[in-house]
């Protein structure tokens, strides 16, 4: 009865928002922590990679919808592990990556900063960590069909609620030893749908999970491209170009694979310099003939 009353009262209401966020910077640089300058980076192949969501200490959820009890619940640890496993599976079996291990959230302390990452590196044996953070916003607007909610039956059968879910999933790849951000990228997803007011909480919850999954798939594609770009940059010997920490990638003694951070395509290509030099040679030959 209370739900129906709420439905009736809220018919024609404006936008309702549910927001869930975590933040990598809150974890690495909690309030009062001085910025830690990155040192030069040495990556030894094959890499051992850890995957984790930034801890939920600062995870923020908010909702103003009386129907949506539960829709503003944080992303569960079980769901996070599903997403991490999905990313790990996409990057396993590559020559330059020895292992990709999801790290349970319990291992990451809120505001733990790099000291916490050092503990993880020591205990789990990872060199590089991929820290994920997300920002998901869900909007619910009631359409004109909400007038049918007054019939009570309408609240059960008329899909007068327009829902939209926007998800942004960010991945920051850090070399733990040097504290350097190697690269970052993000995946995103936007999806919409309609529901009856009675089903809205469930619809938004499902949309939240599906959208995170789709953003994860998008992130996997973007990570692949970012890894390639990082490899190109690595050839120059720096992390992000001039003025950033030096980067050295070397194989370990037991590594027999191929470092495929970049396309790895090389050519012995002549260019303008060689043509200029040929001109010098021609001039020398001409002078020889002339002298004779």
């Amino acid at each position, binding site marked *: 009865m209370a739900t129906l009353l709420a439905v009736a009262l809220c018919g024609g209401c404006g936008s309702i928002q549910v927001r869930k966020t975590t933040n990598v910077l809150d974890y690495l640089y909690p309030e009062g922590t001085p910025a830690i300058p990155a040192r030069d980076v040495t990556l030894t*192949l094959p890499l051992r990679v850890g995957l984790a969501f930034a801890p939920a200490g600062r995870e923020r959820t908010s909702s103003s919808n009386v129907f949506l009890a539960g829709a503003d619940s944080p992303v569960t640890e079980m769901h996070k592990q599903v997403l991490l496993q999905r990313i790990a599976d996409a990057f396993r079996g590559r*020559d330059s990556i020895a292992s990709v291990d999801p790290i349970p959230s319990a291992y990451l302390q809120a505001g733990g900063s790099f000291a916490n990452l050092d503990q993880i590196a020591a205990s789990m044996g990872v060199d590089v960590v991929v820290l994920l953070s997300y920002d998901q916003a869900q909007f619910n607007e009631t359409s004109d069909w909400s007038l049918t909610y007054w019939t009570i039956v309408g609240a059960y059968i008329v899909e007068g609620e327009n829902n939209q879910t926007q998800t942004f999933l960010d991945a920051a790849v850090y070399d733990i030893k040097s504290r350097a951000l190697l690269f970052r990228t993000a995946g995103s997803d936007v999806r919409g749908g309609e529901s009856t007011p009675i089903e809205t909480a469930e619809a938004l919850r499902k949309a939240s999970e599906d959208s995170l999954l789709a953003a994860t798939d998008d992130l996997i594609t973007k990570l*692949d491209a970012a890894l390639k770009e990082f490899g190109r940059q690595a050839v120059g010997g720096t992390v992000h170009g001039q003025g950033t920490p030096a980067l050295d990638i*070397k*194989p370990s003694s037991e590594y027999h694979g191929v470092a495929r951070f970049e396309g790895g395509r090389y*050519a*012995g290509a002549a260019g303008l310099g*060689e*043509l200029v030099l040929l001109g010098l040679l021609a001039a*020398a030959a001409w002078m020889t003939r002339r002298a004779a």
Partner: protein
Amino acid sequence: MTASPSAGASPDAAAGAAPGVASGVASGIARWPWIVATFVACATAISLWPEARAALVYDRGGPPGSIAGGGAGAVAAGPAVWRALSSQLVHDASGMAAIDLGVVLLAGAFLERRDRVLAAAALVLGMLFVALAVLVAGPQLVRYEGASGVGAALFTAAALHVAFTTTSRGARALALAAAAVALAKAAVEQWSGWTWADAHLPPDVRVLPAAHLAGSLAGIVATLAWRARWRS
């Protein structure tokens, strides 16, 4: 290591250059540079034939573009070592083929017409040195192609040959400067990673400066060996 002991009417010989050298120049001056021409013809044919390119290119990985891909199978199989040699006949891009083979043809024909044995030695040593550079280039190199290393070997040998055989001081200085600049350019490329030759390459292909450096060194070694043999 002169091509032939026969003397001729070369400018160098006429000007009183060292007999062994002069004879090499003399015997080679009228020759058709068939060694270099054959190399360029083979490389051109291979570069126009996709199946031949795929068979001869040095590629340690899986399909192009599959970064961090390849997988254990590709690594276990690996490319045959001889592909580090044959890949120097492969050019995937027409612009790259035109410039690489143009340099090989011009520098090589110039040298072979002066001294066929030195040209052959520079070409063979160039291919071997570049192949070695490719094999030890490190794990970042997955695929290699191109004849610029051979071009560098032939050019350096040609410049040094002119320097050692000419009687003109100006020509000698110019030729030595050309050889020195070629070597310095390769060294700067190797240690700085900066190259001039990126513009005409496909966007996902990078120059391997070590190939140019190896080629230039091969040219020097070939010329010094040729000179040592002549002196002996």
